[in-house]
């Protein structure tokens, strides 16, 4: 899936993507502001931001590719490599660490035969660490797709992977 610079010609944004970006672009004095939300919108439809997608967004917003790349590589939730259907972000910050996030990571990786950052062979799941999810009183926690999962243990992980 690696793309070389020569191959990364621009592709077009879909009508739906453009519609969703246009719905919020006027919230700001300067359209550059919509960059991160535009990436979020496009990623929602395409799962990740390829080089050509990045260029399409930059062209649409009329901002430089370098500027957009500087934002895309900075934020934790913009994926610049392909991910699976569901991304499992396990929290590895302090309380979750204390209460077993390393076991959660090990169990996830062992069940899916992956290392953190990798996608399972069937393309279902990508495992990534994430910083504190704000659920420390119900640690360990993870964000599974859009859903916050709390009080995790190996049984709960098995249950999540069964679906």
């Amino acid at each position: 899936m690696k793309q070389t610079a020569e191959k990364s010609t621009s592709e077009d944004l879909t009508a739906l993507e453009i519609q969703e970006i246009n719905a919020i672009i006027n919230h700001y004095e300067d359209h550059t502001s919509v960059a991160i939300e535009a990436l979020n919108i496009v990623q929602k439809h395409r799962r990740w931001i390829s080089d050509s997608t990045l260029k399409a967004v930059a062209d649409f917003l009329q901002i430089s590719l370098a500027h957009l790349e500087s934002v895309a590589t900075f934020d934790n939730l913009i994926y610049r490599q392909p991910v699976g259907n569901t991304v499992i972000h396990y929290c590895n910050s302090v309380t979750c660490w204390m209460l077993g996030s390393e076991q959660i990571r090990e169990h996830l990786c062992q069940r899916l035969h992956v290392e953190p950052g990798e996608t399972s062979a069937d393309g279902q799941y990508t495992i990534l660490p994430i910083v504190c999810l704000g659920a420390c009183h119900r640690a360990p926690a993870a964000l599974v797709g859009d859903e916050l999962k709390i009080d995790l243990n190996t049984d709960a992980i098995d249950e999540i992977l069964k679906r």
Partner: protein
Amino acid sequence: MDKPLTQNIHPDHDFTSLADYQKTGGYRGMRKALTELQPHEVTQQIKDSGLRGRGGAGFSTGLKWSLVPQKTSDLPDFQQTRYFVANADEMEPGAFKDRLLLEQDPHQLIEGIIIGAYAIQANIAYIFMRGEYRLAAKRVTYALQEARAQGYLGEHILGSDFNLEIYLHTSAGRYICGEETALLNALEGKRSTPRARPPHAVASGLWGRPTVVNNVETLCNVGHIIHYGIDWYHSLGLGADHGTKLFGVSGRVKHPGLWELPMGTPIREIVEEYAGGMLDGYQLRGFLPGGASTDFLLPEHLDVRMDYDAVAEAGSRLGTGTLIILDDKTCPVKMVLNMEQFFAQESCGWCTPCRDGLPWTVTLLQDIIAGQGRMEDLDTLAGLTRMLGPGHTFCALAPGAMEPLQSALKFFREDFERYIVGNNDELEYA
């Protein structure tokens, strides 16, 4: 009423609609502000209430608002427009308070924003929310629609001359975005690095215009203060500070959780009564009173009151008010390593002490834990806590990162030394 912030939050119903919110007095503070008070009177009341920022810094909210230049016709053009921003980028390890307020009673935040925006005469406000808070984003979006349909947002709110739109901005996740000036850069669609100060945001913020940035919990107090008054608000605190605060406890206690209690509640009461004390088989060894970027305190500090000055006097910071418990079976050196890895990863890389100093800190701690440390490394770490400390960086990330380290070196030095001299086998840590 002694629990204004959580009066609508019950375990059996998990969302407070506009109708629910108004049943308990919601939006009456807004009504009073917009129909009976001048903007500067609102600011004065918030100032007199003694409300201090609940995001961690504890700066006077009313004072911050008062620093925005008054809107007069002789102001230069660029200062005629001003912005109001709610900081919903909660990401401090150990903090889980704003999420509750956002998910379960979003109108309380919206009312606070309307009053704050009116006070500084901003016509556009943003809620800057971390991307991971997916449910909160849904709930806030819904509440904004309800408020708009009711005429609480838009033009001529309650028949006044005041117009306001509130937009939700969902971010893509980075701890530094919670820093006031880095948040402004993020909102402008830029890489989220902090800005040099001065100028402060109140003078030159979003797109160079006067901007106020307040934490979610801070803003949730505002409507109640305007509605119930300053005397009522002062009556809520137990110590030097006023009002209530969301206090949380996480770690190996019997009942980890979050409770709204008077400012100045003693730590012992929070840990032993509300959190139920330590789990069986574990002893309290220490705690971080307000998230990962606060200094450790010890069991001897349990009688300290949770307010800004009392915790500072004890050698730490109130921070977010969410305590992280260190038990006797968790290695404090490894715990500090976990937090320094977080800070090193989340450093934006803008200034050298933070960009280079934090990975260096991590490496030293890893070496020590791997049994490859030397006693001089402890001096180097102590040196780093000074070099990365206040005054050497653009923002508070690195100084915050040094707080748990410097206090761990002071209180748990024997744990570091045991790794270095090589007899850490006797440790019972997992």
